[in-house]
């Protein structure tokens, strides 16, 4: 079952460099899903802090994605590498409270993926749901 049919709320942090028309490109999916999918454009994925990721769960996310540029292609050279380490740290933190680390996923864009944040999001949402509704939200 895909993530939306499974009732998951998805939060997507992403590097704005990936899609200059990000604002327009994500509207259709936002219109369709309303607050169930939330987008947070970052000037660079390296801007993410573990606290952002934790707050996403606190505010009701079940699955959090961080979409970064391909490794080696960061506009600020090492932003996406740092993002990776921060994601790993945040995973450790949520595991401590009993949430699966897999609820946070770093996705490095590949050439095969569309340069359109709406389309990328669509692909992500269509994935099989690996987790169920977060205990933070359901309790």
């Amino acid at each position, binding site marked *: 079952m895909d993530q939306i049919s499974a009732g998951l709320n998805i939060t997507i942090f992403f590097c704005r460099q990936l899609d200059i028309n990000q604002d327009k490109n994500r509207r259709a999916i936002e219109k369709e899903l309303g607050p169930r999918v939330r987008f947070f454009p970052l000037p660079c994925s390296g801007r993410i*802090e*573990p*606290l952002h990721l*934790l*707050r996403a*769960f*606190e505010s009701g996310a079940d699955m959090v994605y961080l979409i970064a540029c391909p490794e080696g292609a960061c506009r600020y050279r090492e932003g996406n590498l740092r993002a990776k380490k921060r994601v790993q740290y945040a995973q450790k*933190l*949520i595991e*401590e*409270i*009993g*949430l699966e680390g897999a609820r946070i996923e770093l996705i490095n864009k590949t050439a095969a993926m569309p340069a359109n944040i709406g389309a990328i999001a669509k692909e992500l949402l269509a994935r099989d749901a690996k987790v169920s509704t977060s*205990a*933070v939200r359901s*309790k």
Partner: protein
Amino acid sequence: MITAERKPLAEIKAMLAPYRKILVVGCGTCVAECASGGEKEVGLLASALRMDAQIEGRTIEAHEMTIDRQCVYEFIDKLTEAVGRYDVILSLGCGAGVQAVAEVFPKTPVVPALNTTFIGETKESGLWVENCRACGDCKLGYFAGVCPVTRCAKGLFNGPCGGSKNGACEVDPDSPCAWQLIVERLDSAGRSDLLEAIYPPADWSKQQGKGPRKIVREDQRSES
């Protein structure tokens, strides 16, 4: 600076179990520098505690505050107004901070969130290494600025033990042998004569003292 590491969440939770309203207090000095007790870590811990409670179906309030220094009363005073509204203070200060806060607010339980670890330096970002044990009797002048009390696993004052190989300590091969460093540095500074001297047993009373050690500076104290 004083370094610390966050305790496992389970341990913190166990100490907080009887309380509902928690004031999570960070310290903006040493523990902020070593990324264990600053504003960000306060945010992370408070967020984790709130979510954890929610998962377990408990309701808690975790309010975040970070003061410049938890070991100085002037800064602790900034908590005074808020403290009354909480059942417990969760301190992300070092041991000194926790005790100072507890001293100022004797009616509110204070719980430590960190394990105070050592006095050390930032070796590189994300790496902190102990380099002082506060022995109260500094002999760095004889040891080329390398503390054998702290950095030699056996605290040897008179040269390396037989376990040093390729500059590494036998106890922790990731650490350089302190005596290797001392010998090399004294050599390059032209002071290998210092290596020949036999240093007498240390005066540990300066470290252990009689109860807590004190520093008194009359010129800095008020008259009253």
